[in-house]
């Protein structure tokens, strides 16, 4: 079979073995019998590694299928084939699933029985006097939709890319009333444009799902014109300077600092350009004020458009009655629109010498107090939007944009510290996809995932003596990444075949009869709530526009002393995800996995509902019951159970007598291969073997039962997912 060995072993492997100057290699070995075993193991390591980068975690079936394809046509061709297939899958929509989940729940909302009015998607009946939030809070649906898509969506590459982009263009539910409910028209307050907010975030997120393989410039434009961003960075309703009031500078700063070019002028390889004074800054405070003038005049895009309105409505350039809102939150479903009379009229001095003249054609000077700015000639909608387009084009075409964005995306997919060469290769694709298109995200993502450096962190070798073995080693510090807690969780759920079950029931009697949800299974969706309290990370829960962690974050300790090679663009090692590691998240995460593995992920809630003086109220607080005249109960059960049957079978294999070492090794190697890409640290592997054998020895007096085997399997799984080799990916 040697011909097959030579013909099919992916040639890239040998390249890596040759170029890899290993500073930090740590190796673990797998027992092999034949060279075919080597081929299979090699392909599985690479399929696991690739799917860890490109998806929310490979299932065993997906890893095995891709590994087979890699053995058949070669590693990189199989990866490209997989990418092509993924690109063709339609996008999983966050907002559509959010809405579906909501509508599925509606029949179980006793809340609506009060009025006899068919519930719709627009207004939640709620008394203006209620202080506790509605337990059926609509804001929770977006989080459940996100988890379901990540865990069950077929368009994994698109979902992972959207997740990466959402961490560049970071928004969050924590501000701007994005969680607010809408009010029923008959309830005090009525439908209010300030309150119909809750679907803004999922609609915004869909920009990234829908354009994950589109053009970066389109994403930048859609983000800039989205009402969610307009609110989040407070430039919606921003006006030209007048009467001692100046344009808000928030978006002007962050669109440069975080969304396009960053703080420093960069070379194509991600290194900073310097002069005698050090790194060259891309912009200063004066530049921000010029860009702030550009982002003036935008308001929500719904209602009756009145471009000639001389005063900008706080919410919109539109006037008149708010039109029907069949899909929830119209203002976030259409782009913001320009009120040209409120767009700055003066000249604007932008980066790289770009000057936008005033409305009367003058260029004045770069100050905020130009006489030209106070002229009486208003912009038109077209000319005002053209200024925004010109400013965004300038940032998109800035030399720092490709390396800045590429470095951030590589950090989300592959590694924390891409080399100059890696950045340079992907930047070249960003600048030109081969067909003179700049910012083609499909080719940027492909370049990131298929670059030699994406495979380099894990090396594989076949060792013949003293006995045939397959050795997996890692390249170490510069090539690895602390995995995001959210992605560790998705890897876990997807590999252990997380099985969701969602039930709901209602009852008219409270509190004596608690309804049993079992009779009302309404979906097999992952209705998982926010895990932010455990992870300090969850979709829509970023603490600020600076995302969950700073891209430049460097933990303390040994990390600081690490001698960085000249391959790293900035000369220092970073590890953003350590920004959210602390004594609470570390222990809470360990406890969380122990709970998942020992039992399941479950969230059972019982919600009481009653009414006071004709207004429906909700809330579990019993302090309200004194004045409550009618009451009902809703119960909800959301569970995810996991399948450890394969691991249990491997553990049961030990039941046939001493010695058990080989069987124990099979269990560990199975978990190591699929969850750690074969990189489990040698000592950890040995110690875990010892621990499993000790447990088997302890219970084996009458043979290992099924229950005992399950305990052993769970112990092994828990030990793996709390190991540094699982938490840090290669």
């Amino acid at each position: 079979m040697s011909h097959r060995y030579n013909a099919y072993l992916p040639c890239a492997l040998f390249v890596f073995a040759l170029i890899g100057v290993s500073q930090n290699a740590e190796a673990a070995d797998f027992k092999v019998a034949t060279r075919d075993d080597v081929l299979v193991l090699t392909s599985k390591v690479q399929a696991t590694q690739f799917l860890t980068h490109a998806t929310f975690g490979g299932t065993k079936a997906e890893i095995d299928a891709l590994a087979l394809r890699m053995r058949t046509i070669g590693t990189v061709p199989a990866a490209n084939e997989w990418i092509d297939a993924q690109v063709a899958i339609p996008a999983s929509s966050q907002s559509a699933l959010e809405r579906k989940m909501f509508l599925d729940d509606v029949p179980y909302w006793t809340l609506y029985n009060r009025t006899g009015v068919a519930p719709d998607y627009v207004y939640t009946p709620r008394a203006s006097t209620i202080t506790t939030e509605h337990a059926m809070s609509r804001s929770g649906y977006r989080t459940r939709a996100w988890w379901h898509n990540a865990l069950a969506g077929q368009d994994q590459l698109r979902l992972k890319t959207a997740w990466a982009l959402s961490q560049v263009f970071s928004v969050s539910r924590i501000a701007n009333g994005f969680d607010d409910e809408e009010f029923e028209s008959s309830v005090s307050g009525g439908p209010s444009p300030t309150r119909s907010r809750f679907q803004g975030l999922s609609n915004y997120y869909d920009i990234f799902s829908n354009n994950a393989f589109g053009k970066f410039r389109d994403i930048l434009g859609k983000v800039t014109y989205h009402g969610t961003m307009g609110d989040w960075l407070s430039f919606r309703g921003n006006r030209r300077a007048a009467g001692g009031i100046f344009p808000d500078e928030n978006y002007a700063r962050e669109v440069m600092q975080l969304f396009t070019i960053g703080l420093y002028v960069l070379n194509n390889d991600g290194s900073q350009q310097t002069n005698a004074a050090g790194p060259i800054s891309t912009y200063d405070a004066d530049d921000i004020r010029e860009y702030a003038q550009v982002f003036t005049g935008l308001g929500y895009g719904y209602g009756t458009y009145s471009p000639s309105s001389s005063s900008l409505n706080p919410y919109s350039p539109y006037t008149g009655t708010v039109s029907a809102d069949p899909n929830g939150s119209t203002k976030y479903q259409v782009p913001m629109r320009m009120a040209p009379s409120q767009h700055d009229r003066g000249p604007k001095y932008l980066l790289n010498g770009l000057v936008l003249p005033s409305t009367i054609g003058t260029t004045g000077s770069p100050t905020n107090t130009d006489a030209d700015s106070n002229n009486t000639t208003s912009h038109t909608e077209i000319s005002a939007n053209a200024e925004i387009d010109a400013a965004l084009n300038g940032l998109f075409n800035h030399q720092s944009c490709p390396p800045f964005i590429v470095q951030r995306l590589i950090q989300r997919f592959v590694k924390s510290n891409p080399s100059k060469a890696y950045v340079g290769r992907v930047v070249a694709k960003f600048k030109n996809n081969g067909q003179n298109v700049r910012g083609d995200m499909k080719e940027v993502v492909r370049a990131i995932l298929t670059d030699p450096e994406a495979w380099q962190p894990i090396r594989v070798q076949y060792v013949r003596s003293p006995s045939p073995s397959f050795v997996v080693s890692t390249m170490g510090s510069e090539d690895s990444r602390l995995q995001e807690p959210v992605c560790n969780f998705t890897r876990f759920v997807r590999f252990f075949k997380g099985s969701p079950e969602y039930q709901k029931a209602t009852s008219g009697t409270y509190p004596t009869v608690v309804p049993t949800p079992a009779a009302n299974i309404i979906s097999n969706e992952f209705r998982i709530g926010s895990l932010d309290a455990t992870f300090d990370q969850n979709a829509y829960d970023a603490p600020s526009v600076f995302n969950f962690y700073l891209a430049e974050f460097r933990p303390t300790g040994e990390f600081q002393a690490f001698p960085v090679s000249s391959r790293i663009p900035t000369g220092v090692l970073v590890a953003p995800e350590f920004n959210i590691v602390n004594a609470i998240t570390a222990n809470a995460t360990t406890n969380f996995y122990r709970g998942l593995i020992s039992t399941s992920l479950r969230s059972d809630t019982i919600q009481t509902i009653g009414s006071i003086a004709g207004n429906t109220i909700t809330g579990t607080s019993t302090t309200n019951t004194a004045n409550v005249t009618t009451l009902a109960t809703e119960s909800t059960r959301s569970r995810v159970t996991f399948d450890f049957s394969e691991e249990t079978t491997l553990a049961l294999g030990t039941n046939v007598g001493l010695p058990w070492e080989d069987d124990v090794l099979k269990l560990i190697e199975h978990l190591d291969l699929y969850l750690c890409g074969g990189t489990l640290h040698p000592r950890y592997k040995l110690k875990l073997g010892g621990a499993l054998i000790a447990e088997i020895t302890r219970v084996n007096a009458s043979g290992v039962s099924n229950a005992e085997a399950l305990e052993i399997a769970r112990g092994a799984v828990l030990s793996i997912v709390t190991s540094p080799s699982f938490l840090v990916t290669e």
Partner: protein
Amino acid sequence: MSNSKKNFETRRNLLKLSTCGAMTNATFLSALTHLKMTSSVMAESSIVPTGGYKALVCLFFNGAIDSFNVLTPFGTTQGDARYSEYAGTRSGAALKRTLAWDGAWTGTDYGYLNPIVDSTSAGGTGRTFGLHPRFTYLKQMYDAGHATLVANCGALVEPIVNNNDYNNATRKKPVGLFSHPDQQRHWQTAVPTSRNQVKGWAGKMMDRFTDPALQANNVYSAVSTSGQSLFLTGDRIGGYTIGGVTNSTYTNGGATVINGINGSTGTDRIFTAMQNDFASQTYADVLEQTILNGRIEARDAALALSSAWPTATLPRAPAVQFPLSGLGSQLSAVAKVIKIASSATTNPLQQQRQIFICTIGGWDHHASLLASQDTMIPAIDTGIKAFYDFLNAEGLLSNVTLFSISDFARTLSYNGSGSDHAWGGNPIVMGGAVNATAGNNRIWGSYPNIVLNTSGTGLDRGRGVFIPQTSSDLYHAEICRWFGVPDNRLSEILPNIGNFPYRGTGGNPLGFLNIS
């Protein structure tokens, strides 16, 4: 790679090793002092704390609080800090003065300013100032001589006296002015010239106060109630995170303890064996080693706190009820740790010196400034007041100093809804060490006239971005000196302190604390 064959050969032998040895609590505790001593840190000579227990509590207003609405002018006459200038400049961002006299005020009504005086009897200017309408308790603490503010204070590399001086190309300036992450870093590191600074000044200071020979337990010397903290990061000190707690839910001293260690199920026995082996593992990959170190420290420190907490001889909850708010629960947790650590009863948390950081975010009020401050400041005011009451009740008021930091202040001019990024601001200090007595109170630093003077001799960089006239280094130096850092050691912690001449009497950096 070189060790792979050896591993293969020895694997089966190692598999036979027993891994069932359970780590006891005593083992955990003895391991604590070694947790952070992984880098070469012994070069710095230690500072021996004297004079009993002292603690610092840093209150971080994340996102840049508009502190020219925390401390406003109130005067009506030439020479005073004039409210009319403030109201005119701030436009719709201005707070209302009094019912009787609103001057140029045009804003939305969010109550009246709380007047305070910079007393001539205390060596002040006699000018009058306003505290935000919701800082009613802060006014009481100020009037009692237990709180103060430092005016127009910000990060500098060297003094910059006006715009002409700023425009002098040789004048060194902080990097990334008016950018959130940069200026947060400046306040926390006191190294405003670098973006690569990874140690906070508090961490560097605590490295010097926590010689293991002097103090048994380093983990609790620097505690964050708000996650990972650059401010607390030093060589030996990393900043330990505890959760905020309310009065009723306080368990394990705020620590999150790992469950299942020494548990009775097969899963837990295997899990325990692996946990017990963590300290013996070493990883060549520095990310893996760092995550491992963090897991060990988190596990052991939580156990230490939870095991110290129920000791019958130790005081448990403070007598004071803290408000149910973000800051209330954080300060409640701090109070409880302080109460144990300062106790005369020997316990694992006992300390001579401690520093804490609490963080309250959401101050980036580009929009809805007045309404947001109106909503958010009461939780700050009542939180600080509860902490003040706790310190008073425990007789610790002079042992603990609370001080605030924030990214920067905000533009004095209005953007139609809020204010944008600026520079110098007005931090708050509270504690028995404040250099004032009832009726003899001071506002420190140099409070500027609230006019937009962008001329060469003015301080305004445009839109009301004021060049700080008091360096944050002087502010921090005063705090460090009170904490016990000798004058000749300050530059190790605040490297640019030598650029700023001291202004306080008796050789103190500013004078707002009683430095004994």
